[in-house]
């Protein structure tokens, strides 16, 4: 017995001494955050390959225009003003004067031309054309009129080109001109000697660990107050929350249930905002049961969406009437059917549509979501629908599996999913034949609604205020015909240590980019 004790004591001492041996160095001017945790984040992405993670990219690179702070309008960045000709086929952007690259070179119109051509270069195979909904067919040419003026010539009218250009990070021609576009995605330049025009400059990147930045003294809005900005990578939200509580980081994304636990705690500030993503059940209308409007409406009536968002989701989601995450996209309430919980009506509609209440039907609902939020929501949907004789079975698939079925239009009946839907990024392609790669060429749901397609065709070329009216008309049509099962839009949260001053964060889809005035952030005090 003694021999065990002899071994135990030095072991214990070692364990107790280890933490004492090294203190935590705290530089008060450095902000360490988990900027790529959560749905808006994607660690170590590079411009034009940014499926998400744009909050961080905007620290180093800037676009011509970005969203404003609450993504309700555009905000000038490297461009100061822009205008279009009468039919929206030529757009002219005036560029900001005196902007310097991190290496001291001057920013000019040639950089913009270079950037768009690179982003559109088929050899570089970037995801920019896909995400910006711009294609080589629509953009005929981009040319530098003078050092501070750029012109975009289009093949077809586009009243919302500036919105499409939000994702066009401007890269330095002088640093990247020699890069072979085919090597673009393999290039180490972005992680070793990145040069941008953003408020912070590349300092050190350690893959899978962190990306550290220095303040850019030449930033056009003035030098940042922070003496450093570090993005720490976490494989999981929980780890980031624990690091926040341990005081090692000062900011992270947090899912609703966890964020609510921080509310009222003086040591933290909770940021929140609409996710901009609509969650809905898309019915595969190739299955003729769902081609019947009564069935779709019955499902809407059968689910108590109000109770789910208020009780189970604890107010971290809001009911939506249609695809559209912002109230300004909805027509007046009296023009909408609110589908208030009415199981009797649901049963009646189902019976009319030929459903026999004595023989419940089993239907799989596929989703790619794996968070507790959606698991809880689906559990509730399941319970409500079983009340009217429909047994849905939620099946979770990983994203590639899900996509490989979803976009063929086969192998699924109902899908619970989300779609980013703001004014400017309205998901038109979802409703149009050929807009998405389905096998039969039909729209994703398999249902074709000519009236809606007409509205979409008008909206595509309309400028405000007609555009807003058309988006509201589309909403009304979707709502009344229950073209899909519209559920809710989630509210997303970020938690920051209250030691941060003038810090700002907004849960923009894919991270924006939006205007967060990062040069004003500071720590301590």
């Amino acid at each position, binding site marked *: 017995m003694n021999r065990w004790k002899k071994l135990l004591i030095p072991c214990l001492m070692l364990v107790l001494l280890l933490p004492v041996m090294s203190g935590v160095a705290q530089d008060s001017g450095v902000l360490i955050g988990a900027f790529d945790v959560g749905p808006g984040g994607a660690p170590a992405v590079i411009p034009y390959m940014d499926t998400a993670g744009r909050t961080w990219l905007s620290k180093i690179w800037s676009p011509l225009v970005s969203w404003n702070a609450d993504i309700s309008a555009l905000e000038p960045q490297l461009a100061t003003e822009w205008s279009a000709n009468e039919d929206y086929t030529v757009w002219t952007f005036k560029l900001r004067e005196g902007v310097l690259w991190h290496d001291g070179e001057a920013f000019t119109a040639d950089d913009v031309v270079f950037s768009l051509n690179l982003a559109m270069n088929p050899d570089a195979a970037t995801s920019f054309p896909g995400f910006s909904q711009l294609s080589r067919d629509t953009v005929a040419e981009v040319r530098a009129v003078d050092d501070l003026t750029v012109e975009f010539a289009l093949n077809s009218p586009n009243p919302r080109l500036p919105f499409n250009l939000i994702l066009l990070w401007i890269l330095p021609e002088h640093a990247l001109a020699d890069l072979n576009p085919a090597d673009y995605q393999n290039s180490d330049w972005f992680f070793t000697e990145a040069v941008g025009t953003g408020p912070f400059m590349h300092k050190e990147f350690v893959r899978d660990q962190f990306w550290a930045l220095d303040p850019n003294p030449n930033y056009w809005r003035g030098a940042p107050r922070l003496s450093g900005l570090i993005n720490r990578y976490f494989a999981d*939200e929980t780890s980031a929350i624990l690091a926040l509580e341990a005081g090692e980081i000062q900011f992270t994304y947090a899912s609703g*249930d966890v964020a609510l636990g921080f509310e009222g705690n003086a040591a933290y500030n909770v940021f929140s905002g609409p996710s901009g993503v609509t969650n809905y059940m898309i019915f595969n209308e190739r299955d003729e049961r769902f081609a019947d409007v009564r069935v779709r409406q019955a499902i809407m009536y059968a689910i108590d969406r109000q109770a789910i968002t208020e009780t*189970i989701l604890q107010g971290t989601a809001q009911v939506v009437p249609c695809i559209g995450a912002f109230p300004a996209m909805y027509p007046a309430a009296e023009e909408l059917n609110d589908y208030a919980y009415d199981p009797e009506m649901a049963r009646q509609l189902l019976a009319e549509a030929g459903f026999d209440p004595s023989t419940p039907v089993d239907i799989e609902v*596929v989703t790619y979501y794996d968070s*507790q939020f959606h*698991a809880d929501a*689906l*559990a509730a949907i399941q319970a409500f629908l079983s009340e009217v004789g429909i047994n849905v*079975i*939620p099946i979770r698939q990983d994203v590639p599996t899900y996509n490989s079925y979803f976009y063929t239009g086969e192998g699924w009946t109902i899908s619970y999913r989300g779609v980013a839907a703001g004014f400017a990024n309205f998901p038109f392609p979802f409703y149009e034949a050929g807009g998405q790669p389905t096998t039969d060429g039909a729209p994703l749901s398999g249902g074709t609604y000519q009236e809606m397609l007409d509205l979409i065709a008008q909206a595509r070329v309309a400028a405000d205020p007609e555009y807003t009216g058309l988006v509201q008309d589309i909403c009304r049509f979707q709502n009344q015909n229950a073209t899909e099962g519209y559920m809710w839009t989630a509210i997303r949260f970020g938690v920051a240590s209250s030691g941060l001053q003038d810090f700002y964060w907004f849960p923009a889809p894919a991270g924006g980019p939006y205007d967060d005035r990062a040069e004003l952030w500071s720590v301590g005090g």
Partner: protein
Amino acid sequence: MTNQTLSAAAPIPTLQQAQTAKADKNRVLRRFLRNWPAVISLSLVVIIVTMTIGAPLFQRYEYEQIDLRARAALPSAEHWLGTDRVGRDVWSRLLNGGQVSLVVGFGATLVSTLIGTVLGALAGYYRGWVDMVIMRITDIFMTFPSIIIMLTLAAMLPRSVWTIVFIIGLLSWTGTARMVRSQVMSIRELDYVLACRALGYTDVRIITRHILPNVFGSLVALVTFAIGSAILTEAGLSFLGLGVPPPMPSWGNMLEAARNLDILRNLPWMWIPPAIMLVLTVLAVNFVGDGIRDAVDPRMVL
């Protein structure tokens, strides 16, 4: 090291012993019953199995019934183990979840132990090319990317508990095979096995009656681990779209919920009960195995 050639295993059974097989069985049973940890564990297994199979008799709510007014409720007289975040009764989910988990745990372990033991015994006993072929197949199976296989099967096989049993069993027999083989290789060189061969016993009889009983100890260790890990693996499968379809609970997916920080911290009644059930089940199986091993081991004096 000089003692290594001495017999390390059961004595050679004589004709007389074979005739008294029945008396033998009684003795084994008596020995087992004298081993109180094993007896308690066995009763525990019986209780757990009864409670889960007879779940409808012991529950007050259906496991899928939601109650929005009593969501995330603390354990109470109403809900003995509280409710989850949708207001479903945790006690009822625990009992019903046990059905799935026990079938998966025991079923998958049965499959993997059977395959592993047969292949391991053949390889270890016959050696030579039999060994070479079986072990190279084992090598190949050991390098299989299980996530990809599960993803693929998830897309091809029907969702059912038996599919899960089959998949987990099929992907986890390799360790058993190598373990059994290593010991059979050693035991087959012992004097009494050589004697059995000299007596002209068939290979099947030598393997099943004289070699495998000596591997039993390791098998118990293997089985107890395999049951626990199969129950946890099932939860991972539902992540890939292959687990038991919701709202059907399982101990694995109840435990899995603890990945959510809110549940882990604020709703411990959602995940601690399945954790306890899992520990108890595995522990009980272990002690029962321990007891059986001691009872059948003739050298053991209690």
